């Protein structure tokens, strides 16, 4: 008997073929607040939980609903709810449900500290695609060294246990920091034991959206050296193999050449976008240069997607040093440098950032050695 209905296998979905030759905003990050109950040393966005000024700037439920309607109209399928800590919003359930009822596939980033039985019952009824939780430490000392919030470890473990018991798909990740460096291997072990999804860790910290100099210094202090980053990536077999299998062919290609001076060669604004807690549209979550953002409170998503983005992606570099060093760099895929991060580091989107450069070259050397060792 013919089956008319099939489970959608996303890899084979005929939509991908249809959109090969044009841009469709398939997914977006929605930062529903910049406020957070923690105060992590490395965080690029967090503002205090009780920051009334920040709270007053937050998009309302009606504004979020309107942006989501516009996104759905343009073809968006996925939405990632993030923050700050999204569960701090008193109207979190209403926001989540409003987005879900539009047919968006939702995921959530949370620190898990605020998760209650009520959240679990809600998520079980209206399941997200997944919930991703950051594991900054698996001891109270290390976790709270990062979060700088007494009592946060107990809350985190309680929330995480509730999530594990719920059967909701949980992904775990961590940031590799100076403050949790000595516990990283145990964090990785814990995460892999507790989640079937791929565990990821990120050692590349970028600076604050608000460019707060004091907080930026704290982030720089949390950065690992290039040698330390290489060492932890080498020690982690899964990560090491992923680098060897997925990045080697980029790095050791003699043909890598960019014959233009366009700034953007990445995927920013091609199939995704980000909306800040106060309504600013960005091509990607890190891109905050004032010339590249677009205030959705004064315009439409259609205008941002169809007219603003092409202008941004047309920006060219005029910095000879950047064009000489970065534009044709064959190890660009191992580097954090991009217009967004260069701007946060230097105030210019086309700048060479020595720290990123050191890390990328150390990674390339380590990767080359690992491949030689394997013969």
């Amino acid at each position, binding site marked *: 008997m*013919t089956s008319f*209905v*099939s489970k*959608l296998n996303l890899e084979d979905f005929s939509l991908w073929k*249809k959109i090969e030759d044009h841009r469709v905003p398939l997914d977006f990050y929605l930062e529903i607040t910049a406020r957070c109950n923690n105060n992590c040393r490395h965080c690029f966005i967090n503002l205090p939980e009780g920051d009334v000024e920040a709270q007053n700037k937050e998009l309302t439920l009606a504004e979020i609903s309107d942006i989501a309607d516009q996104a759905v109209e343009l073809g968006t399928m996925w939405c990632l709810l993030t923050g700050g800590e999204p569960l701090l919003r008193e109207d979190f359930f209403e926001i989540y449900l409003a987005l879900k009822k539009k047919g968006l596939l939702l995921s959530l980033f949370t620190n898990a500290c605020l998760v209650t039985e009520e959240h679990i019952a809600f998520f079980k009824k*209206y399941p997200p695609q997944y919930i991703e939780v950051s594991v900054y430490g698996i001891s109270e000392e290390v976790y709270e060294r990062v979060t700088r919030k007494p009592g946060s470890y107990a809350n985190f473990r309680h929330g995480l246990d509730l999530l594990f018991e719920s059967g909701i798909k949980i992904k775990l990740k961590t940031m590799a920091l100076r403050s949790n460096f000595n516990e990283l291997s145990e964090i990785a072990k814990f995460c892999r034991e507790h989640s079937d999804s791929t565990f990821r860790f990120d050692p590349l910290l970028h600076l604050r959206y608000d460019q707060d100099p004091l907080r930026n210094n704290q982030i720089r202090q949390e950065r690992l050296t290039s040698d330390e980053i290489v060492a932890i990536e080498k020690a982690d077999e899964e990560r090491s193999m992923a680098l060897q299998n997925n990045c080697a062919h980029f790095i050791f290609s003699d043909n890598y050449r960019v014959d233009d001076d366009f700034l953007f060669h990445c995927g920013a604004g091609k199939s995704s976008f980000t909306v800040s807690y106060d309504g600013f549209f960005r091509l990607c979550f890190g891109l905050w240069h004032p010339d590249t953002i677009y205030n959705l409170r004064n315009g439409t998503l259609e205008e941002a997607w169809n007219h603003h983005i092409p202008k941004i992606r047309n920006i060219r570099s005029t910095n000879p040093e950047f064009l000489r060093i970065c534009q044709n760099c064959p190890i660009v895929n191992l580097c954090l440098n991009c217009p967004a991060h260069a701007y946060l580091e230097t105030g210019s989107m086309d700048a060479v950032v020595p720290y990123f450069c050191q890390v990328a070259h150390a990674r390339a050397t380590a990767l080359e050695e690992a491949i030689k060792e394997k013969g």
Partner: protein
Amino acid sequence: MNEISVKNIYMCSEDVVAREIEGELIIVPLVAGIGDMDDELFTLNETGKLIWDCLDGKTSLLDIIENIQREYNADTDLIEEDVLGLVGELVRRGILIDKSTP
């Protein structure tokens, strides 16, 4: 159970959201329990999509079959088989509900 009658009117359940992106129909479960897995999505084949577009919550299956027959000049028995097949499958999965059921 799940007896499909051509006299009845069927409509999309409130537990799913049907969306069209670039002409591709996807059916997104809103609540758990629609698919075997919570994050499953569904799509329809060409025939299924054609029939789906007629399921407006106002027209009986009998009228839908007649409308399709008139438009495509196809064999009524075959159309009826396809319509009942699709509706049965969607009702079983909780994607369609029988509007006449209290």
